[in-house]
Structures are given as structure tokens and as C-alpha cells.
């Protein structure tokens, strides 16, 4: 139901955008007569009334057909499925790293709230929040590619490497490094800040005093009793931010010409390739819904209060 609303909404929004595939094709081929453009519009059904177009599109989506890309002239579903793996690889790696390292930073910082490391985390968070991701990406390129010359500039993998071999996987990882670093930097900052605040809150609570009064050491107190409570807000934010990180991925993928959904989305918007854009939006919406579901499941694992609230 929610997905259907997303589909309809996307369709309406994109119809409001001036220009269509006929304009793009005409532009690319250096001009076309009115008859040719009308012909193109007829081929793609753009001459029909708006509500018929909408109904046709929704009807197709329900059957799992996202239409045909104007530009690539192939089914959008196929197009997206070919691009989704690199994006998920990028986004999930970046998010997981940001959460793990961010939480760890936050935990270490919280143990000495006025220590050097804690100040470092605060500064890191400020820089991370303030720096636009494309700027970070370019700085990283300057450092690692231009100056140190140890990282590839762009792409998913060196095209000469035989696919499927161990070298191929390692090469993908090598190419993955910079995009992941740029993308996770922003989120690393916010997670370390969040984890620090959350940990400090939890460390001041009564059950931490109880844990200490039992004779537990600081490591047990921090990582067993405090952390499990402190990650609850981190999970919440991670779930909410997953959709956010997608938009970050568009920028990072474009900078590094990473052959994922982000690059495809960016290029399709420039080309006015409406079915592809709608397909990507539909796909992102689906992923966000799935991630929200996963977030809820994670909650149940971590927090028994939620488990029993649902069972009751």
C-alpha cells in the first residue's frame, strides 16, 4: 500500500518536470522536426491523457514491470538489478563501518568525557557534519590518488582483471576503499557523537552503579552492561539514516564513477529517462522499507521491553 502511494507520488512529481524524452532525443541528434517528436511521444504513450498514463504505469508496476528505459532501450528492472549490487556493497559497507567505528569511538570517548580522545571525537563530528561529502571525496582523491598514488581513481574494478578470481575481489576492495571512506566519514562523525552522548547517559544510570557494586570490572560494565543499552538510540538513527545514505551515495558514486544506482540515477535525471528514475525511486523505497523492518527486528533482539510489548 505504502509502495503504491510512493509509485503514484513519484509519477506525479516527475510529470511536473518540464521536458521529456522527445526533447532529449531531439537535443542529442541535433534537432528534429515536430512530426518526429510527436512520433516519439506517440511511441512512448506520452500523448495520452495524464490519468491514463498513470493508470497504465501503476498497472504495469503491480505486475512487476517497471517499464523500459528510454535511453538504454532495455527493461528498467534488468537495468537496476545490474546496478544494485555495487550500490549495496558501497552503502552497506559504509554504514556498517560508520556504525561499528563510530560506536567504538563514542564508547572510548565516553569513558573519559574530558579526555583528549573525547575532544578529538567532538572535532571529528564537527568536521564530519560540516564537510560536504563531494568535498571530502575530492580531498581524499587528492591525497590518495594524486599525491600518494596508492588508490585507483574511479570505477568498480580494473577492466583487465579476470572476473571472479581472487585478484578480482581484492581489486574491487581496492576500488571500494575511497568511496566507502568518503561516504562513511559523515556518518562516522554523527554515530560517534551519538554513541558518546548515549553512553554517557547510560553510564550515569542506577543499574551501572549496581553493576559496579556487584564487583564487575570496568570492561564488563562498559561493554556488557552499558553498551547494550546505549546502542538502542544508535540503531534508531541508523535505520532512519539508511535512506539518507542513499542520497549520499548518488554524490559519491558520481565522483568516483562507481557503476551503481547512484550514477544511474544521476545520469538518468540528466537524460530525462523518466522510467529509469521512477524505477530507481521505487527500488529505493522498497529497500528503505526492508531496512526499517530489519531495524525493528534488531530492536527486538537488543531490547526485551519491545519483545514483550509486541507479544502482550
Amino acid at each position: 500500500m505504502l509502495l503504491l502511494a510512493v509509485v503514484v507520488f513519484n509519477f506525479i512529481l516527475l510529470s511536473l518536470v518540464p521536458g521529456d524524452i522527445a526533447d532529449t532525443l531531439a537535443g542529442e541528434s541535433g534537432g528534429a522536426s515536430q512530426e518526429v517528436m510527436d512520433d516519439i511521444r506517440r511511441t512512448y504513450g506520452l500523448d495520452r491523457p495524464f490519468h491514463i498514463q498513470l493508470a497504465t504505469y501503476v498497472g504495469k508496476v503491480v505486475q512487476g514491470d517497471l517499464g523500459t528505459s528510454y535511453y538504454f532501450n532495455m527493461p528498467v528492472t534488468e537495468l537496476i538489478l545490474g546496478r544494485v549490487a555495487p550500490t549495496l556493497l558501497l552503502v552497506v559497507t559504509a554504514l556498517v563501518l560508520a556504525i561499528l567505528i563510530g560506536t567504538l569511538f563514542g564508547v572510548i570517548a565516553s569513558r573519559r568525557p574530558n579526555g583528549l580522545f573525547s575532544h578529538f571525537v567532538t572535532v571529528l563530528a564537527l568536521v564530519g557534519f560540516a564537510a560536504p561529502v563531494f568535498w571530502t571525496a575530492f580531498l581524499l582523491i587528492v591525497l590518495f590518488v594524486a599525491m600518494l598514488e596508492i588508490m585507483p581513481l574511479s570505477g568498480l574494478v580494473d577492466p583487465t582483471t579476470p572476473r571472479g578470481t581472487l585478484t578480482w575481489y581484492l581489486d574491487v576492495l581496492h576500488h571500494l576503499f575511497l568511496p566507502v571512506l568518503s561516504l562513511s566519514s559523515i556518518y562516522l562523525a554523527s554515530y560517534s557523537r551519538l554513541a558518546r552522548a548515549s553512553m554517557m547517559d547510560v553510564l550515569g544510570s542506577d543499574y551501572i552503579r549496581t553493576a559496579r557494586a556487584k564487583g564487575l570490572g570496568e570492561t564488563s560494565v562498559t561493554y556488557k552492561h552499558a553498551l547494550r543499552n546505549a546502542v538502542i538510540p544508535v540503531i534508531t538513527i541508523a535505520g532512519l539514516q539508511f535512506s539518507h545514505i542513499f542520497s549520499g551515495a548518488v554524490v559519491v558514486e558520481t565522483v568516483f564513477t562507481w557503476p551503481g544506482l547512484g550514477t544511474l540515477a544521476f545520469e538518468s535525471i540528466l537524460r530525462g529517462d523518466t522510467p529509469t528514475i521512477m524505477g530507481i525511486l521505487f527500488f529505493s523505497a522498497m529497500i528503505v522499507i526492508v531496512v526499517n523492518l530489519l531495524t525493528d527486528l534488531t530492536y527486538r533482539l537488543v531490547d526485551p521491553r519491545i519483545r514483550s510489548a509486541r507479544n502482550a
Partner: protein
Amino acid sequence: MDAAAPLLEVEDLEVEFRTRQGTARVLDGVALSLQPGRTLGIVGESGCGKSMTALSIMRLVPVPPGRIGAGAVRLKGEDLLQASEKRMREVRGKDISMIFQEPMTSLNPVYSIGDQIAETVRLHEGLSRRDSLDRAIEMLKAVHIPAAERRVREFPHQMSGGMRQRVMIAMALACRPSVLIADEPTTALDVTVQAQVFDLLKELQEKTGTAIILISHDMGAIAEMADRVMVMYAGRIVEEAATDEILESPKHPYTRGLIACVPHMEEEPPPERGALTEIPGVVPALTDLGSGCSFAPRCDHATDLCRSRAPGPFAVGADHRAACWLYDEAGAA
């Protein structure tokens, strides 16, 4: 009174906290001694140093801003203030346990109560997972939690305040400690539940011989439970005696005030007792205690001497001491 060597002995304990307003001396010359199987009550208003005394014995005072300046805490002769942190972790939960005022928040919400009790046992006695869970069930039975086998798997949010305090008691006593410090254990509970918790503590004390330090602001609770009472005010002990003695003939004006504050339920109250009584004024800020008696600003009997010099404890009866110039037999007043 008892000739036997005390189980726990605190001598001349001084604790300071550094704050923006200056250094606050939260404990000043606190001394106590506890015999095995006995109950010592510590009474006083909020902020008088009751809880800080308990945390100092456990060495759980947050450092910084806190600092244990001087004194000794001897458990069976061993000075805990000189012990290593590692040794202290062995003592906490095994030799000295503590239960707190807030049963609602003192248990970790994400672990089952069985896990939390078993954790202490595993830590101190090195039992296996299964054996420690068996001990947890046994302890839940000891604190009269019905259906212990089932409830051991439950989480704190599934239990009421009274039940959670029972769980805390079960956890504290799981390793059979020689001292149990109960810091306002019933303050957050309903009156009917309070009585149950006190009965339970007494029953368990009889069974196990654990000595109890009961911290409370409630004279009634102390009268019910304690063999001996220490009254604290602004970080100092102002009066100390056996419970009956202090209730019958309180000496320090502050103690008298505290006892007068307890409302009585009588059909025909004696005419000299008016409405509810209170001690006028508030506890002074610990950062600007003058050189005099810290109770002087609120005391009806205060003299110039009270305002300039702090009174030492004077013997006012058999094993009864009060820190008040009224009882200076040398007649310094």
C-alpha cells in the same frame, strides 16, 4: 558493648568533592563499627552524607570529582582504602553488597533477572552457567518470589517495584556477604510493601547472619530494624547510641527534631503535641561550612560558642555520644 572484634570498622573518614563553588567536605570524621549479624541504622536528611558513607565503604565514590582524603575502612582488619582496585572488585558483591533506593532503575533493563543474579555468582564463585542459574532460582525463592523457576527468565520491566527490590536483595545476598548496605531500600515503595521488605531483610539476616547497614531518613524504619543508630548531619555524626536509648532520650537537638518530625497516629494526641513538627531551615551548603557547629543556624539552643567552634562528641550515657556543646561536662560553655 560487644567485646568481639568488629566486622567492619570505619575510622575518621573524610571525603571531599571538588565543585565549581569550592571544595565540599561531604564526610568529616565519620566513624562506625559493625558487629556480625547486627544492624546499624544511619539517619539524616538528604545530603547529610548517609549515601556517601556507604559509597565510600564500597569505594564507589566517583573520583574525580570526589576524593577520599583520610581515614580507614577496615573489613575484618583489612584496610579497604589501601586495597588495590582488583581486590576491591573481589570485595564488592562478595563480602560487602549493596542495595539501592530505586528498584525501578537499579536493574539492567536488557538482561533477565536470572542472568543478573547469576552474573554475580559466576563472577565471585566461578560457578558454571547452569549452576549459577540454579543459585539464582534458589535466591529468588529465598526472597519469596513466587514461581521462581519461571520468573528467573523474566526481565525487570515485567516486575513491580517491590518485586524488583526483592530481586536486588536476592542479587546482593547471592554470594552470602558478611555486610549488606541497604541505602534507602524502601523509600520508593508503597507502605505495605515497605513492611514486607523489612520483614524479609530481618528474616534473611537471621538465617545468614549478615550484618546490615540501613540508611534511611525515616526514624520509624530505623526504629523497626536497627540495633544501633547513627545520626548524621552535614557530613558529621552528631549522635550515636543503641536504638532504644536514642528513641527514649535523644540528646542532640537535631535528633530530637528528627524524632519529633515522625507523625503519630493516636486517637487523642496529648495536648502538648501540636500539628506536625518540622525542623526550621535547610541543610547548609557543604562548601561554606564555618568553623562552628553546622547545625547552629537551625538550633534553638545555639550560643556564640556553637557558632565559633565545632563540638566534639561527648559521652552522654552508656555507649551514647552526642556532638553538642550542651553536653560538654568540662563546662566549656
